């Protein structure tokens, strides 16, 4: 009968060995620089290049921030789910680090989405909030994010916590389209102000939007790597603490 080797010392392959401060220094640098330049270009485009909206005026420019952030909020959740599935199959905690990093990032972007959406709604329709399908689903996604972060926080840094998070993410991502649809159906019975840009969009607007989306995505990747490093170091710190106690 073979006995399982349960090591209480910290040296796990691949983590304790390279004690450099950050991994992927080159990738980080590249992404960071790209983000910086991209941001500058994007901001120039948003404020100077894109045309002023005839109906909504200057506040319409929030659109170029609001949409990418919503996209990142959704992307972030997708990454959490994929990383969660990865963890369930491989039990490699690095997947979990990605999941936690993306969850924190995504939560921030969703919060910003809600804030920008709210401001936009106020300037356009005069109300801080409107129960349209998109904003409502975003709000619910925000709650799911917060629930995820709370769950991970309460359960600590354990295998059980990582698995629970993964399950939550999987359920969440399947539910989001259903939530959207149901709110949509409900809304057709209560037509309300909609936050958005109606009609066809001129090419300069589309271009600005695309640039903004790309830049923000690059920025997201950059931030993700940084947060991943943070997660890794927190995990190492926890293990070190465990051996001391």
């Amino acid at each position, binding site marked *: 009968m*073979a006995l*399982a*080797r*349960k*090591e*209480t*010392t910290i040296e796990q392959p691949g983590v304790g060995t390279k004690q450099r401060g950050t991994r992927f220094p080159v990738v980080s640098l590249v992404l960071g620089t790209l983000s910086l330049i991209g941001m500058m270009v994007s901001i120039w485009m948003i404020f100077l290049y894109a045309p002023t909206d005839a109906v909504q005026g200057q506040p319409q420019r929030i659109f170029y921030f609001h949409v990418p952030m919503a996209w990142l909020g959704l992307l972030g959740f997708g990454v959490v789910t994929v990383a969660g599935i990865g963890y369930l199959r491989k*039990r490699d905690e690095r997947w979990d680090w990605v999941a936690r990093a993306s969850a924190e990032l995504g939560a921030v972007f969703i919060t910003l989405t809600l804030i920008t959406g709210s401001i936009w709604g106020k300037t356009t329709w005069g109300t801080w909030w409107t129960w349209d399908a998109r904003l409502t689903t975003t709000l619910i996604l925000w709650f799911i994010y917060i629930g995820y972060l709370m769950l991970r926080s309460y359960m600590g840094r354990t295998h059980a916590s990582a698995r629970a998070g993964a399950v939550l993410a999987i359920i969440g991502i399947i539910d989001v389209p259903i939530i959207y649809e149901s709110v949509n159906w409900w809304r057709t019975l209560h037509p309300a102000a909609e936050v958005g840009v109606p009609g066809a969009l001129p090419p300069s607007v589309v271009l600005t939007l695309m640039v903004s989306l790309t830049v923000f995505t690059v920025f997201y990747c950059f931030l993700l790597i940084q947060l991943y490093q943070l997660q890794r170091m927190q995990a190492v710190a926890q293990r070190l603490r465990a051996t001391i106690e």
Partner: protein
Amino acid sequence: MALLGANGSGKTTLLRILAALIKPDTGTVCIGGWDIERDAQQVRRLVGFVTHQPYLYDELTALENLLFFGRMYAVKRPRERAAELLQRVGLAKRAGERAGALSRGQAQRLALARALLHSPQLLLLDEPDTGLDEEGNALLETLLQEHIERGGTTLFTTHNLERALKLSDRIGMLGSGRVAYQQETGGLELGGVRQAYQEVLR
């Protein structure tokens, strides 16, 4: 086999891994030809586990507890088997009592009955002597003997060196998460073992 070690050396964790309750972080474990991670359910069928907690349902009677676990382990003719084991552990008169009302020693004996219900090949016992009185300990020894005679294997942890030497044909000691000592008990004597134990504990 008897397993010794300081508290926190990983004895209980090891047993729990073998009982397929938790998964090992590294390495593979095979029991009876079944890999613990891939065929966990098969492993569970072969293993009986007794630990500090009796793993019984307080609101159910002794008999109902055994009946339930008998069904869970797909035991043939669960009622008869349950009655037989209750008799064996000396709890036949208490068959209708709630498990929560049993004394510590009685609960421990019922837990033993539960572990033996499905005639496991591997019996895992985590410090089974705690909570048992003289009579209970004698019963434990008899049951272990019977189990071994039927061809089963036993792995139990204990702090009691004498009992370890008496009941097992192999002794192992865990220290800082590794197996620090392993010997057949054939020619061993208490003094030598005690010394080795002190070494490991340090």
